[in-house]
Protein backbone atom coordinates (compact mmCIF):
# COMPACT_ATOMS: atom_id res chain seq x y z
CA UNK A 1 0.00 0.00 0.00
CA UNK A 2 1.45 3.38 -0.96
CA UNK A 3 1.20 6.17 1.58
CA UNK A 4 2.73 8.79 -0.75
CA UNK A 5 0.77 11.73 -2.00
CA UNK A 6 1.61 14.29 -4.62
CA UNK A 7 2.54 17.65 -3.15
CA UNK A 8 0.06 20.17 -4.61
CA UNK A 9 2.20 23.05 -3.28
CA UNK A 10 5.42 21.91 -4.93
CA UNK A 11 4.50 23.30 -8.34
CA UNK A 12 4.48 26.84 -6.93
CA UNK A 13 7.91 26.61 -5.34
CA UNK A 14 10.63 28.68 -7.03
CA UNK A 15 14.33 27.84 -6.66
CA UNK A 16 15.18 30.95 -4.59
CA UNK A 17 14.18 31.76 -1.04
CA UNK A 18 10.48 31.40 -0.80
CA UNK A 19 7.57 31.08 1.58
CA UNK A 20 3.94 30.32 0.88
CA UNK A 21 0.91 30.35 3.10
CA UNK A 22 -2.19 28.72 1.67
CA UNK A 23 -5.57 28.02 3.20
CA UNK A 24 -6.36 24.33 3.38
CA UNK A 25 -9.02 22.30 5.12
CA UNK A 26 -9.21 23.53 8.68
CA UNK A 27 -5.68 24.93 8.65
CA UNK A 28 -3.03 26.91 6.80
CA UNK A 29 -0.40 25.14 4.73
CA UNK A 30 2.97 26.83 5.32
CA UNK A 31 5.88 25.92 3.13
CA UNK A 32 9.22 27.68 2.74
CA UNK A 33 12.84 27.14 1.86
CA UNK A 34 14.70 25.55 4.77
CA UNK A 35 16.15 27.72 7.50
CA UNK A 36 17.00 26.11 10.84
CA UNK A 37 16.29 29.33 12.77
CA UNK A 38 12.87 29.60 11.18
CA UNK A 39 12.01 26.03 12.11
CA UNK A 40 13.26 26.47 15.68
CA UNK A 41 11.29 29.67 16.19
CA UNK A 42 8.19 28.25 14.54
CA UNK A 43 8.29 25.40 17.03
CA UNK A 44 8.78 27.75 19.95
CA UNK A 45 6.10 30.28 18.96
CA UNK A 46 3.41 27.90 17.79
CA UNK A 47 2.31 25.28 20.32
CA UNK A 48 2.58 21.64 19.24
CA UNK A 49 -1.19 21.29 19.32
CA UNK A 50 -1.52 24.08 16.74
CA UNK A 51 0.98 22.79 14.19
CA UNK A 52 1.71 19.54 12.40
CA UNK A 53 4.47 18.61 9.98
CA UNK A 54 3.16 16.62 7.03
CA UNK A 55 6.15 14.52 5.90
CA UNK A 56 4.47 13.45 2.67
CA UNK A 57 3.84 16.98 1.48
CA UNK A 58 6.79 18.62 3.27
CA UNK A 59 4.58 21.34 4.65
CA UNK A 60 3.60 22.67 8.02
CA UNK A 61 -0.10 22.62 8.76
CA UNK A 62 -0.72 25.54 11.06
CA UNK A 63 -3.75 26.61 13.04
CA UNK A 64 -5.29 29.61 11.29
CA UNK A 65 -4.79 31.89 14.31
CA UNK A 66 -1.01 31.68 13.81
CA UNK A 67 -1.01 33.11 10.26
CA UNK A 68 0.75 36.29 11.39
CA UNK A 69 3.49 34.28 13.13
CA UNK A 70 4.23 32.53 9.81
CA UNK A 71 4.38 35.91 8.08
CA UNK A 72 6.81 37.26 10.73
CA UNK A 73 9.09 34.24 10.39
CA UNK A 74 9.12 34.36 6.59
CA UNK A 75 10.08 38.04 6.70
CA UNK A 76 12.64 37.68 9.49
CA UNK A 77 14.53 34.63 8.19
CA UNK A 78 13.93 34.64 4.46
CA UNK A 79 13.16 38.26 3.67
CA UNK A 80 9.94 37.16 2.03
CA UNK A 81 6.85 39.30 2.46
CA UNK A 82 4.00 36.86 2.85
CA UNK A 83 0.55 37.87 1.85
CA UNK A 84 -1.86 36.57 4.38
CA UNK A 85 -4.75 34.68 2.86
CA UNK A 86 -7.70 37.02 2.56
CA UNK A 87 -10.22 34.40 3.39
CA UNK A 88 -9.34 31.94 6.07
CA UNK A 89 -12.16 29.50 6.39
CA UNK A 90 -13.17 28.65 9.92
CA UNK A 91 -13.65 24.93 10.31
CA UNK A 92 -17.25 23.98 10.85
CA UNK A 93 -18.88 20.97 12.42
CA UNK A 94 -19.91 18.58 9.68
CA UNK A 95 -21.11 15.02 9.18
CA UNK A 96 -19.07 12.72 6.98
CA UNK A 97 -19.16 9.12 5.82
CA UNK A 98 -15.58 7.82 5.88
CA UNK A 99 -14.07 4.55 4.78
CA UNK A 100 -11.85 3.62 7.69
CA UNK A 101 -9.32 1.03 6.59
CA UNK A 102 -7.49 0.68 9.89
CA UNK A 103 -7.85 2.16 13.34
CA UNK A 104 -4.72 2.27 15.45
CA UNK A 105 -4.34 1.95 19.18
CA UNK A 106 -5.41 4.88 21.31
CA UNK A 107 -2.37 6.75 22.60
CA UNK A 108 -1.70 9.87 24.59
CA UNK A 109 -0.58 12.47 22.08
CA UNK A 110 -0.13 15.40 24.39
CA UNK A 111 -3.54 16.90 23.79
CA UNK A 112 -5.53 13.88 24.96
CA UNK A 113 -5.77 10.17 24.20
CA UNK A 114 -6.89 9.40 20.68
CA UNK A 115 -6.69 6.78 17.93
CA UNK A 116 -5.62 7.59 14.37
CA UNK A 117 -7.58 6.12 11.52
CA UNK A 118 -6.30 5.43 8.00
CA UNK A 119 -8.69 7.18 5.63
CA UNK A 120 -8.14 8.48 2.07
CA UNK A 121 -4.57 7.17 1.84
CA UNK A 122 -3.41 8.74 5.07
CA UNK A 123 -3.79 8.87 8.81
CA UNK A 124 -6.38 11.56 8.37
CA UNK A 125 -8.95 10.61 10.97
CA UNK A 126 -8.58 11.23 14.69
CA UNK A 127 -11.00 9.62 17.12
CA UNK A 128 -10.57 10.66 20.76
CA UNK A 129 -10.70 7.74 23.18
CA UNK A 130 -13.78 9.09 24.96
CA UNK A 131 -15.66 9.29 21.64
CA UNK A 132 -14.72 5.69 20.81
CA UNK A 133 -15.66 4.46 24.26
CA UNK A 134 -18.96 6.29 24.18
CA UNK A 135 -19.84 4.53 20.93
CA UNK A 136 -19.05 1.18 22.50
CA UNK A 137 -20.99 2.16 25.64
CA UNK A 138 -18.04 2.07 27.97
CA UNK A 139 -18.60 4.12 31.07
CA UNK A 140 -15.79 6.63 30.69
CA UNK A 141 -16.47 8.17 34.09
CA UNK A 142 -15.50 4.92 35.78
CA UNK A 143 -12.10 3.78 34.57
CA UNK A 144 -11.22 0.37 35.91
CA UNK A 145 -14.71 -1.06 35.84
CA UNK A 146 -15.42 0.14 32.35
CA UNK A 147 -14.98 -2.81 30.02
CA UNK A 148 -18.06 -4.99 29.70
CA UNK A 149 -18.88 -8.10 27.71
CA UNK A 150 -21.11 -5.88 25.58
CA UNK A 151 -18.15 -3.66 24.74
CA UNK A 152 -16.08 -6.75 23.89
CA UNK A 153 -18.73 -7.62 21.30
CA UNK A 154 -19.06 -3.98 20.27
CA UNK A 155 -22.80 -3.96 20.86
CA UNK A 156 -25.23 -2.02 23.01
CA UNK A 157 -26.49 -3.21 26.37
CA UNK A 158 -29.99 -3.01 24.97
CA UNK A 159 -29.05 -5.47 22.19
CA UNK A 160 -31.54 -8.28 21.58
CA UNK A 161 -30.63 -11.89 20.88
CA UNK A 162 -30.32 -11.29 17.14
CA UNK A 163 -28.12 -8.23 17.71
CA UNK A 164 -25.83 -10.27 19.97
CA UNK A 165 -25.51 -13.04 17.38
CA UNK A 166 -24.83 -10.60 14.61
CA UNK A 167 -22.26 -8.70 16.71
CA UNK A 168 -20.51 -11.98 17.52
CA UNK A 169 -20.35 -13.07 13.89
CA UNK A 170 -18.98 -9.68 12.90
CA UNK A 171 -16.30 -9.65 15.58
CA UNK A 172 -15.41 -13.32 15.13
CA UNK A 173 -14.82 -12.62 11.45
CA UNK A 174 -12.66 -9.58 12.27
CA UNK A 175 -10.60 -11.28 14.96
CA UNK A 176 -10.33 -14.94 13.91
CA UNK A 177 -6.63 -15.76 14.34
CA UNK A 178 -6.55 -17.34 10.87
CA UNK A 179 -7.57 -14.03 9.35
CA UNK A 180 -6.51 -11.32 11.75
CA UNK A 181 -2.77 -10.96 12.20
CA UNK A 182 -2.78 -8.63 15.18
CA UNK A 183 -0.39 -9.92 17.87
CA UNK A 184 -3.26 -10.35 20.35
CA UNK A 185 -5.78 -11.80 17.89
CA UNK A 186 -6.03 -15.18 19.66
CA UNK A 187 -6.60 -13.52 23.04
CA UNK A 188 -9.19 -11.13 21.61
CA UNK A 189 -10.93 -14.01 19.86
CA UNK A 190 -11.16 -15.95 23.13
CA UNK A 191 -12.60 -12.88 24.85
CA UNK A 192 -15.17 -12.51 22.06
CA UNK A 193 -16.16 -16.16 22.37
CA UNK A 194 -16.43 -15.88 26.15
CA UNK A 195 -18.61 -12.76 25.87
CA UNK A 196 -20.85 -14.46 23.33
CA UNK A 197 -21.27 -17.62 25.41
CA UNK A 198 -22.48 -15.56 28.34
CA UNK A 199 -24.61 -13.00 26.54
CA UNK A 200 -26.18 -15.56 24.22
CA UNK A 201 -27.50 -17.56 27.18
CA UNK A 202 -30.59 -15.80 28.56
CA UNK A 203 -30.07 -16.99 32.13
CA UNK A 204 -26.38 -16.17 32.22
CA UNK A 205 -27.01 -12.82 30.60
CA UNK A 206 -29.56 -11.90 33.29
CA UNK A 207 -27.04 -12.81 35.96
CA UNK A 208 -24.32 -10.86 34.23
CA UNK A 209 -26.62 -7.84 33.89
CA UNK A 210 -27.42 -8.08 37.61
CA UNK A 211 -23.68 -8.20 38.29
CA UNK A 212 -23.22 -5.11 36.13
CA UNK A 213 -25.97 -3.34 38.06
CA UNK A 214 -24.18 -4.15 41.32
CA UNK A 215 -20.79 -3.27 39.87
CA UNK A 216 -21.95 0.23 39.00
CA UNK A 217 -22.87 0.89 42.64
CA UNK A 218 -19.32 0.60 43.88
CA UNK A 219 -16.67 3.25 43.67
CA UNK A 220 -13.99 2.51 41.07
CA UNK A 221 -11.32 2.33 43.79
CA UNK A 222 -13.09 -0.64 45.33
CA UNK A 223 -12.26 -2.82 42.38
CA UNK A 224 -9.85 -1.96 39.64
CA UNK A 225 -9.64 -4.20 36.63
CA UNK A 226 -6.87 -3.14 34.32
CA UNK A 227 -8.02 -1.29 31.21
CA UNK A 228 -4.55 -0.77 29.82
CA UNK A 229 -4.36 -2.05 26.29
CA UNK A 230 -8.03 -1.43 25.62
CA UNK A 231 -8.62 -1.23 21.91
CA UNK A 232 -11.59 -0.58 19.79
CA UNK A 233 -13.24 -3.93 19.05
CA UNK A 234 -13.55 -2.88 15.42
CA UNK A 235 -10.60 -1.96 13.24
CA UNK A 236 -12.24 -0.86 10.04
CA UNK A 237 -15.60 -0.01 8.53
CA UNK A 238 -17.79 2.63 7.01
CA UNK A 239 -18.19 5.27 9.67
CA UNK A 240 -20.70 8.04 9.82
CA UNK A 241 -19.07 10.67 11.97
CA UNK A 242 -19.55 14.20 13.19
CA UNK A 243 -16.56 16.44 13.66
CA UNK A 244 -14.41 19.12 12.10
CA UNK A 245 -11.17 19.58 10.22
CA UNK A 246 -8.10 20.53 12.18
CA UNK A 247 -4.57 20.72 10.83
CA UNK A 248 -5.55 18.64 7.83
CA UNK A 249 -7.15 15.88 9.84
CA UNK A 250 -10.78 15.23 10.64
CA UNK A 251 -11.31 15.22 14.38
CA UNK A 252 -14.33 13.13 15.29
CA UNK A 253 -16.58 14.41 18.03
CA UNK A 254 -19.31 11.81 17.65
CA UNK A 255 -19.71 8.46 15.91
CA UNK A 256 -23.16 8.07 14.40
CA UNK A 257 -22.77 4.71 12.66
CA UNK A 258 -20.28 1.92 12.06
CA UNK A 259 -20.93 -0.65 9.33
CA UNK A 260 -18.72 -3.33 7.83
CA UNK A 261 -17.04 -2.68 4.49
CA UNK A 262 -18.28 -5.33 2.08
CA UNK A 263 -17.58 -6.04 -1.55
CA UNK A 264 -19.96 -7.08 -4.34
CA UNK A 265 -19.50 -10.73 -3.34
CA UNK A 266 -20.65 -10.00 0.20
CA UNK A 267 -17.20 -10.46 1.64
CA UNK A 268 -16.16 -8.35 4.60
CA UNK A 269 -12.96 -6.34 4.81
CA UNK A 270 -10.68 -7.45 7.64
CA UNK A 271 -7.65 -5.35 8.49
CA UNK A 272 -4.87 -6.13 10.89
CA UNK A 273 -1.35 -5.06 11.69
CA UNK A 274 0.96 -8.06 11.98
CA UNK A 275 3.55 -7.98 14.75
CA UNK A 276 6.71 -6.34 13.45
CA UNK A 277 5.01 -5.21 10.24
CA UNK A 278 5.56 -1.79 8.67
CA UNK A 279 1.93 -1.24 7.90
CA UNK A 280 -1.46 -2.85 8.19
CA UNK A 281 -2.84 -5.53 5.89
CA UNK A 282 -6.32 -5.80 4.49
CA UNK A 283 -8.11 -8.81 3.09
CA UNK A 284 -11.61 -9.89 2.17
CA UNK A 285 -13.39 -12.80 3.86
Amino acid at each position, binding site marked *: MSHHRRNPYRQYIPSQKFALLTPTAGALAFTSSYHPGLVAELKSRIPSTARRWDPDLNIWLIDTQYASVCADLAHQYLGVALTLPLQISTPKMETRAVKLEYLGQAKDRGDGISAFGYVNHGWNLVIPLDVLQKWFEIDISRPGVAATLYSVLGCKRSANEANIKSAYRRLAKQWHPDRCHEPDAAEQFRAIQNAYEILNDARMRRR*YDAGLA*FQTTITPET*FTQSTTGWRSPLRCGWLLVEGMESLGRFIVSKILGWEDITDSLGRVLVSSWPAGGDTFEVDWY
Partner: protein
Amino acid sequence: MQAIIPGSLSSIAKRQNQSLAESFLSVDVLLIVDVSGSMLSPDAPGGKTRYDMAVEELKRLQADMPGQIGVVAFSNSVQFCPSGHPTGSFGTTDMAKALEFVKPTDGIGIRFILISDGQPDSAEDTLRVAGTFKSKIDTVYIGPEGGHGRKFLQQLAAASGGQFVQSVEIAELAAPVLKLLESAR
Protein backbone atom coordinates in the same frame (compact mmCIF):
# COMPACT_ATOMS: atom_id res chain seq x y z
CA MET B 1 -9.85 0.37 52.16
CA GLN B 2 -10.73 -3.09 53.50
CA ALA B 3 -8.62 -6.09 52.65
CA ILE B 4 -10.08 -8.53 50.16
CA ILE B 5 -11.39 -11.61 51.92
CA PRO B 6 -10.28 -14.91 50.35
CA GLY B 7 -13.17 -16.53 48.49
CA SER B 8 -14.99 -13.19 48.04
CA LEU B 9 -16.13 -12.02 44.61
CA SER B 10 -13.27 -9.54 44.34
CA SER B 11 -10.71 -12.21 45.13
CA ILE B 12 -12.19 -14.55 42.52
CA ALA B 13 -12.42 -11.77 39.92
CA LYS B 14 -8.81 -10.80 40.51
CA ARG B 15 -7.61 -14.39 40.38
CA GLN B 16 -9.45 -15.10 37.15
CA ASN B 17 -8.75 -11.64 35.68
CA GLN B 18 -12.40 -11.01 35.06
CA SER B 19 -14.81 -8.22 35.91
CA LEU B 20 -16.93 -8.27 39.05
CA ALA B 21 -20.00 -8.58 36.86
CA GLU B 22 -18.58 -11.81 35.41
CA SER B 23 -17.72 -13.14 38.86
CA PHE B 24 -21.40 -12.70 39.65
CA LEU B 25 -22.19 -15.61 37.33
CA SER B 26 -21.09 -18.08 40.02
CA VAL B 27 -23.01 -16.50 42.91
CA ASP B 28 -25.45 -18.87 44.62
CA VAL B 29 -26.41 -16.70 47.54
CA LEU B 30 -26.56 -13.06 48.49
CA LEU B 31 -26.02 -12.42 52.17
CA ILE B 32 -27.80 -9.23 53.14
CA VAL B 33 -26.05 -8.24 56.33
CA ASP B 34 -27.34 -5.76 58.90
CA VAL B 35 -24.63 -3.27 59.87
CA SER B 36 -26.88 -0.92 61.84
CA GLY B 37 -25.82 0.76 65.08
CA SER B 38 -26.91 -2.13 67.28
CA MET B 39 -24.29 -4.35 65.59
CA LEU B 40 -21.65 -2.37 67.46
CA SER B 41 -22.91 -3.82 70.74
CA PRO B 42 -20.67 -6.44 72.25
CA ASP B 43 -22.45 -9.68 73.11
CA ALA B 44 -20.23 -9.93 76.14
CA PRO B 45 -18.72 -7.03 78.13
CA GLY B 46 -15.27 -6.22 76.78
CA GLY B 47 -15.72 -8.75 74.05
CA LYS B 48 -15.96 -8.38 70.29
CA THR B 49 -18.92 -6.55 68.83
CA ARG B 50 -21.63 -8.40 66.92
CA TYR B 51 -20.26 -6.74 63.81
CA ASP B 52 -16.70 -8.01 64.38
CA MET B 53 -17.98 -11.49 64.99
CA ALA B 54 -20.21 -11.33 61.91
CA VAL B 55 -17.16 -10.37 59.84
CA GLU B 56 -15.28 -13.39 61.17
CA GLU B 57 -18.16 -15.68 60.31
CA LEU B 58 -18.48 -14.19 56.83
CA LYS B 59 -14.80 -14.87 56.26
CA ARG B 60 -15.36 -18.50 57.12
CA LEU B 61 -18.37 -18.79 54.84
CA GLN B 62 -16.61 -17.22 51.87
CA ALA B 63 -13.55 -19.39 52.38
CA ASP B 64 -15.80 -22.47 52.43
CA MET B 65 -17.78 -21.39 49.37
CA PRO B 66 -15.37 -19.38 47.20
CA GLY B 67 -17.08 -17.22 44.59
CA GLN B 68 -20.55 -18.41 45.59
CA ILE B 69 -21.39 -15.70 48.11
CA GLY B 70 -22.17 -12.05 47.43
CA VAL B 71 -22.25 -9.69 50.40
CA VAL B 72 -24.55 -6.69 50.70
CA ALA B 73 -24.42 -4.57 53.87
CA PHE B 74 -27.19 -2.26 55.00
CA SER B 75 -28.13 0.16 57.72
CA ASN B 76 -29.72 3.44 56.62
CA SER B 77 -27.84 2.99 53.32
CA VAL B 78 -27.00 -0.09 51.29
CA GLN B 79 -23.62 -1.15 49.97
CA PHE B 80 -22.52 -3.98 47.70
CA CYS B 81 -19.34 -5.38 49.28
CA PRO B 82 -17.44 -7.44 46.69
CA SER B 83 -14.39 -7.59 48.96
CA GLY B 84 -16.52 -9.74 51.27
CA HIS B 85 -16.14 -7.31 54.13
CA PRO B 86 -19.49 -5.72 55.10
CA THR B 87 -19.16 -1.97 55.39
CA GLY B 88 -21.76 0.53 56.47
CA SER B 89 -22.63 3.63 58.39
CA PHE B 90 -23.93 1.82 61.50
CA GLY B 91 -27.09 3.91 61.30
CA THR B 92 -30.70 2.77 61.32
CA THR B 93 -32.11 -0.48 59.90
CA ASP B 94 -33.60 0.31 56.50
CA MET B 95 -34.38 -3.27 55.50
CA ALA B 96 -36.84 -2.20 52.79
CA LYS B 97 -34.08 -0.26 51.05
CA ALA B 98 -31.79 -3.29 51.28
CA LEU B 99 -34.40 -5.50 49.59
CA GLU B 100 -34.98 -2.90 46.87
CA PHE B 101 -31.23 -2.83 46.29
CA VAL B 102 -30.98 -6.58 45.68
CA LYS B 103 -34.22 -6.71 43.67
CA PRO B 104 -32.39 -6.68 40.26
CA THR B 105 -30.98 -10.09 41.20
CA ASP B 106 -34.41 -11.57 42.00
CA GLY B 107 -35.62 -14.48 39.88
CA ILE B 108 -32.26 -15.47 38.41
CA GLY B 109 -31.53 -18.42 40.67
CA ILE B 110 -29.79 -16.53 43.47
CA ARG B 111 -30.84 -17.23 47.03
CA PHE B 112 -31.30 -14.39 49.52
CA ILE B 113 -30.35 -14.71 53.16
CA LEU B 114 -30.97 -11.68 55.33
CA ILE B 115 -29.01 -11.53 58.57
CA SER B 116 -30.11 -9.07 61.22
CA ASP B 117 -30.25 -8.47 64.96
CA GLY B 118 -33.03 -5.91 64.96
CA GLN B 119 -36.33 -4.64 63.77
CA PRO B 120 -36.54 -2.68 60.52
CA ASP B 121 -37.19 1.06 60.30
CA SER B 122 -40.49 0.19 58.62
CA ALA B 123 -41.91 -3.32 58.95
CA GLU B 124 -44.71 -2.41 56.56
CA ASP B 125 -42.37 -1.21 53.78
CA THR B 126 -40.09 -4.19 54.23
CA LEU B 127 -42.92 -6.69 53.92
CA ARG B 128 -44.32 -4.81 50.92
CA VAL B 129 -41.00 -5.01 49.05
CA ALA B 130 -40.51 -8.64 50.10
CA GLY B 131 -43.93 -9.39 48.63
CA THR B 132 -42.68 -8.41 45.17
CA PHE B 133 -39.89 -11.01 45.21
CA LYS B 134 -40.10 -14.15 43.09
CA SER B 135 -37.32 -15.81 45.07
CA LYS B 136 -37.56 -16.84 48.69
CA ILE B 137 -35.92 -14.72 51.35
CA ASP B 138 -34.44 -16.70 54.22
CA THR B 139 -33.72 -14.87 57.46
CA VAL B 140 -31.21 -15.43 60.23
CA TYR B 141 -31.77 -13.75 63.57
CA ILE B 142 -28.56 -12.93 65.40
CA GLY B 143 -29.94 -10.90 68.31
CA PRO B 144 -30.40 -11.92 71.91
CA GLU B 145 -32.87 -14.59 72.87
CA GLY B 146 -36.40 -13.17 72.98
CA GLY B 147 -35.42 -9.97 71.17
CA HIS B 148 -38.04 -7.97 69.29
CA GLY B 149 -36.43 -8.50 65.91
CA ARG B 150 -36.88 -12.25 66.06
CA LYS B 151 -40.61 -12.18 65.45
CA PHE B 152 -40.30 -9.81 62.51
CA LEU B 153 -37.64 -11.90 60.77
CA GLN B 154 -39.90 -14.92 61.13
CA GLN B 155 -42.69 -12.91 59.55
CA LEU B 156 -40.43 -11.72 56.71
CA ALA B 157 -39.26 -15.24 55.87
CA ALA B 158 -42.86 -16.50 55.90
CA ALA B 159 -43.99 -13.65 53.61
CA SER B 160 -41.70 -14.84 50.82
CA GLY B 161 -41.91 -18.57 51.54
CA GLY B 162 -38.39 -18.61 52.96
CA GLN B 163 -37.04 -20.19 56.10
CA PHE B 164 -36.23 -18.59 59.43
CA VAL B 165 -33.22 -19.64 61.44
CA GLN B 166 -32.02 -18.35 64.76
CA SER B 167 -28.38 -18.10 65.64
CA VAL B 168 -28.26 -17.74 69.42
CA GLU B 169 -24.59 -16.91 69.35
CA ILE B 170 -23.42 -14.71 66.51
CA ALA B 171 -20.15 -16.59 66.55
CA GLU B 172 -22.15 -19.50 65.18
CA LEU B 173 -23.60 -17.56 62.29
CA ALA B 174 -21.94 -19.66 59.59
CA ALA B 175 -23.64 -22.85 60.77
CA PRO B 176 -27.27 -21.73 60.24
CA VAL B 177 -26.37 -20.10 56.92
CA LEU B 178 -24.80 -23.32 55.72
CA LYS B 179 -27.86 -25.19 57.02
CA LEU B 180 -30.14 -22.94 54.95
CA LEU B 181 -28.01 -23.49 51.88
CA GLU B 182 -27.94 -27.24 52.42
CA SER B 183 -31.72 -27.34 52.74
CA ALA B 184 -32.07 -25.60 49.40
CA ARG B 185 -30.04 -28.18 47.50
